């Protein structure tokens, strides 16, 4: 870890060109311990590419990446399990790290899917699968979490719940999080710094600053910035993923 501050990973003016086309260009950002940085932007704006640059997937990038940790948890955007490979949730949890049963149970409980531990991955719904992927990424207590659309396919209340959990985790594990989302208002409360991408950094700052930014409005429409905060109403109960109703 860099000594003078809590920086885990720092991108200095990075870009990637493939087949004579810039996928993304001129991106600078840094993720610090206990902080959440969110990348937003339309489809094809280079969000995933930027995350992969941060992870060190590409060799021929412009600019440079300073990485100060190797303990990384990753939730990729797309993951498809081949049917020829029989895999249970528990097997997936042990994929990159030898974890104790206790740690596995703890992580699965945090994301609300402990009851699925011995289920085959093929039988999970999209939302359940995302929760398992998130549990897997946090189980090794990483310094840096890279989450590429971690709540896709999760229903709306579950989505907010998971973002709250992600926020909690960043404080509890004191890890830095690089989060990718296509949707600013749901990540609003769970982010410290937003980078809005559209092939380049079109604006960045705190969530409310970005929401007010004219380039952001141009990209997502006036509507998007006005609907912010509308989802802050409270329920008096929550539905856990195994179907129980819990009073708050």
């Amino acid at each position: 870890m860099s000594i003078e501050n809590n920086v885990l990973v720092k991108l200095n003016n990075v870009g990637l060109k493939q087949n004579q086309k810039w996928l993304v260009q001129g991106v600078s950002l840094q993720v610090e311990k206990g902080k959440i940085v969110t990348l937003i932007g339309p489809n094809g704006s280079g969000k995933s590419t930027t995350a992969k640059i941060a992870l060190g997937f590409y060799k021929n990038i412009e600019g440079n990446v300073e990485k100060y940790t190797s303990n990384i948890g990753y939730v990729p955007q797309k993951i498809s399990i081949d049917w020829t490979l029989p895999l249970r949730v528990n097997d997936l949890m042990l994929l990159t790290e030898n974890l104790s049963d206790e740690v596995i149970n703890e992580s699965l409980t945090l994301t609300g899917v402990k009851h699925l531990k011995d289920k085959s991955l093929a039988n999970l719904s999209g939302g359940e699968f995302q929760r398992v992927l998130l549990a897997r990424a946090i189980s090794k207590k990483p310094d840096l979490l890279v989450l590429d659309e971690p709540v896709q396919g999760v229903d709306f209340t579950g989505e907010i719940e998971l973002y709250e959990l992600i926020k909690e985790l960043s404080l509890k594990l004191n890890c830095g999080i690089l989060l990718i989302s296509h949707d600013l208002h749901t990540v609003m409360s769970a982010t410290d710094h937003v980078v809005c991408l559209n092939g380049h950094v079109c604006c960045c700052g705190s969530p409310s600053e970005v929401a007010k930014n004219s380039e952001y409005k141009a990209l997502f429409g006036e509507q998007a910035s006005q609907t912010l905060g509308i989802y802050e109403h409270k329920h008096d109960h929550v539905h856990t993923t195994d179907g129980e109703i819990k009073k708050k």
Partner: protein
Amino acid sequence: MLDDFFIRALVAGIGIAFVAGPLGCFVVWRRLSYFGDTLAHSALLGVTIAYSLEFNIAVSIFLISSVIALILIQLQRKTNLPSDALLGLLAHSSLAVGLVVIGFLTFIRFDIMGLLFGDILAVNKKDLFIIWFGGALILITLKIIWKPLFASTVNYELAEAEGLNPDRAKAVFTVLLAAIIAISIKLVGVLLITGMLIIPTAMARNLSDNPQKMVIFSIIGGLLSVFIGLFSSLEFNTPSGPSIIAAALVLFVFSLLKVKQTIQLKN
């Protein structure tokens, strides 16, 4: 005891089954069956080189198969042809070149059928040593690379992001495939080695709900195939390779019953 040719074949088969099970699982999971075929076909060229230079057959096959694997990786990088076309190109051209070279080596008597389909009489004590010693080395190496190889089989990017070095694991696995082909060629033959890797594994898939079980079942399936195949080879005087593979096929067909049952249970 090892003086009996049948006992030798049996001991050889048991050793091969133990190695083929786990490797076969990765061949199926990573969709490498045609790749395995290509390496196996090139093995014939290895045999001819071994004979003409009076070199150890297993070592020669291992080297040639590794070279073919390297050529394939280069061709994939440098040409626009799809992988299956490149595999076909290498498989058939190396088989053809191997057979042409055999044609030139008129001073040596070749049992072509034995090379292609395995020969129960061909396994000597030295082969047993190579199978068991080489097999142990293969399994130990596989154990070492298991985590990165398995993780990258599930998802390459995840393995790379979390620092497991999937490329190195893949390269080592390719070498292991070349090695198992080298040690099992005498018993199973060039054309049927991939069957030994795949069919018991396919059977195991039908019976398993997790990867460990699948590995264990494919070893058991391989062992049963070897027993049934070799006894019937002795009984009916059939070549050993096809007999073993046919036995594996029968086991696979039986395993389909289990699949049918689970599908019915689901409905």
